[in-house]
C-alpha cells in the first residue's frame, strides 16, 4: 500500500538552516546537507527546503546547496522560495532537485503552472497555498500570510490542479506555529475536491496531530519543522505510533 509521508521542512537563508536546530550527532547543525542526511537516515520520507534568502547572492548559494543535497541524500526533496520562471526551475532540476514548490508566483501568474507541468511534468510541480479564514471563508494569502488575496482556497486548489500541479502543499496560517493540530476540516475538503496528493502543513505539535491529519484530514503527507528539528517528536517513534494506529508508513 502507498504510505503516508512524513516531511521535515528546512528554512534556508544564504545556504544555511535558519531556525535553531537541536539535533544530536550533528557536527554542524547549520549545514542543511548534514541535517538532510540525518533526516534521511532516521526515516524521513521526503524533505522540503524553503529558501528565505532576500538577496540574489543568497539565492545563488541555494544552487550549490541543492547540488550537495542531491549528491549526498538518497530520498526525494523539494525546493521552494523565490521561484518565478521556467528558467529558475530548469536550474534547480539540473542541480538535482526532484520537485519545486511555487507559491506567490503562481498566484501572480497562474500560467506558470501550465508552463512548468508541460515542460517538466506534473510530478515535479508542487503548488504551495497559504490560507487563513476570513469571515468563515478560507482565503489565499501571500508573503507568509501577510497579504490577503481575493482567491478562495478551494477555487484556487481546483484551478492549480487543472493547470497541471502534481501536488498541493496547504499551510493553514491560522494553525501555523500554534502546535494545536492541523486544519483537518479544510484538508479533508481539499482532498475530496481534487485528485492530486495533499501535503498538510501548519499546526503539528503532538503525535496525535499526525494521526488526526491522516485520518480525519485525509492528508497524503504531513510537513512540519520545529517539532522535528528540536527532537520534540522523533520521526522513528512517530512512525511507530502511526503504524500502531493502522496508518500505513514506511518503517
Amino acid at each position, binding site marked *: *500500500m*502507498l*504510505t*503516508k*509521508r512524513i516531511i521535515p521542512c528546512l528554512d534556508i537563508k544564504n545556504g544555511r538552516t535558519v531556525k535553531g536546530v537541536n539535533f544530536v550527532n550533528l557536527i554542524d547543525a547549520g549545514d542543511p546537507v548534514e541535517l538532510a542526511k540525518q533526516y*534521511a537516515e532516521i526515516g524521513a*520520507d521526503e524533505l522540503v527546503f524553503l529558501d528565505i534568502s532576500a538577496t540574489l547572492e543568497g539565492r545563488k548559494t541555494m544552487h550549490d546547496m541543492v547540488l550537495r543535497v*542531491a*549528491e*549526498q541524500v*538518497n*530520498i*526525494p526533496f523539494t525546493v521552494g522560495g523565490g521561484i518565478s520562471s521556467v528558467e529558475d526551475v530548469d536550474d534547480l*532540476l*539540473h*542541480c*538535482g532537485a*526532484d520537485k519545486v514548490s511555487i507559491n506567490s508566483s503562481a498566484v501572480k501568474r497562474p500560467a506558470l503552472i501550465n508552463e512548468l507541468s508541460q515542460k*517538466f*511534468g*506534473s*510530478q*515535479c510541480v508542487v503548488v504551495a497555498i497559504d490560507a487563513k479564514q476570513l469571515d468563515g471563508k478560507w482565503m489565499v494569502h501571500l508573503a507568509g500570510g501577510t497579504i490577503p488575496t481575493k482567491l478562495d482556497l478551494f477555487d484556487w486548489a481546483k484551478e492549480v490542479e487543472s493547470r497541471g500541479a*502534481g*501536488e498541493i502543499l496547504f499551510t493553514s496560517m491560522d494553525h501555523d506555529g500554534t502546535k494545536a493540530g492541523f486544519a483537518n476540516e479544510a484538508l479533508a475538503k481539499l482532498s475530496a475536491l481534487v*485528485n*492530486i*496528493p495533499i501535503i498538510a502543513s501548519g499546526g503539528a505539535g503532538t503525535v496525535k496531530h499526525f494521526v488526526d491529519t491522516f485520518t480525519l484530514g485525509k492528508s*497524503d*503527507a504531513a510537513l512540519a519543522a520545529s517539532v522535528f528539528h528540536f527532537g520534540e517528536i522523533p520521526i522513528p517513534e512517530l512512525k511507530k505510533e502511526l503504524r500502531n494506529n493502522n496508518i500505513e508508513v*514506511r518503517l
Partner: protein
Amino acid sequence: MKLVIIDYGAGNIKSIQFAFKRLGVDAILSSNIEEIKGADKIIFPGVGEASSAMKMLKESGLDIIIPTLKQPVLGICLGMQLMCNQTEEGNTQGLGIFDVTVKKFSKDVKVPQMGWNTITNLQSDLFEGLTDKDYMYLVHSYYAENSSESIAKTTYDVEYASALQKDNFYGVQFHPEKSGKSGERILQNFLNL
C-alpha cells in the same frame, strides 16, 4: 566497469549519476551510440511525457539501437514504460522490448501515485537481499500491466508490474536512486549482474 546513463534529454539524470557515485562508480552520461554500445552496463532513464521522450529517442536513432543491446540495461520510471509495446500516454508506440501495455490509473485513486509503496513477488537477482517489506519511491500516472515478464508487483488502484525483465533488459517503475538504502541495494545488484 563502464557504466553509461543514456542522455537523450529526458529525466533526472543527475540524481542517478550521484546515486552510483555513492556506490563508488562513476557513470558516464552519453547520447553517443558507439559509447553506449561499448558499455558494460546501461541505464535508460526517463522522466516527463512519453510521446515527447519517444520523439527524442527517434531523433537520435536510439530507438533502433536500444532493443539490439546485449549487455544488462536498466530502464527507470518512464524509461521502463518506453521499453514496453505501447503506452496510453499520448498514444505512444514504445520500443517493444517488453510485451506489455502501459495504462493510466483510474480516477478512483489520486493521480499521480506519489510516495513510497512496497514491491512484492520479487523474482530476480536484481532484488537480492530485499523482501516484500521494502519500500520504493514512486511517482507516476501510468502503470505497466502485469505479465509473465513481471519480476515485481505493486498495488495502487490495481496490481501492476513495478519491475519487468526480459533477457538482458530490466525495467523498474520506481526510483531506486531515491529509495534510500533499499534502492541503493538494487543499483548495487544491477552492477553485480
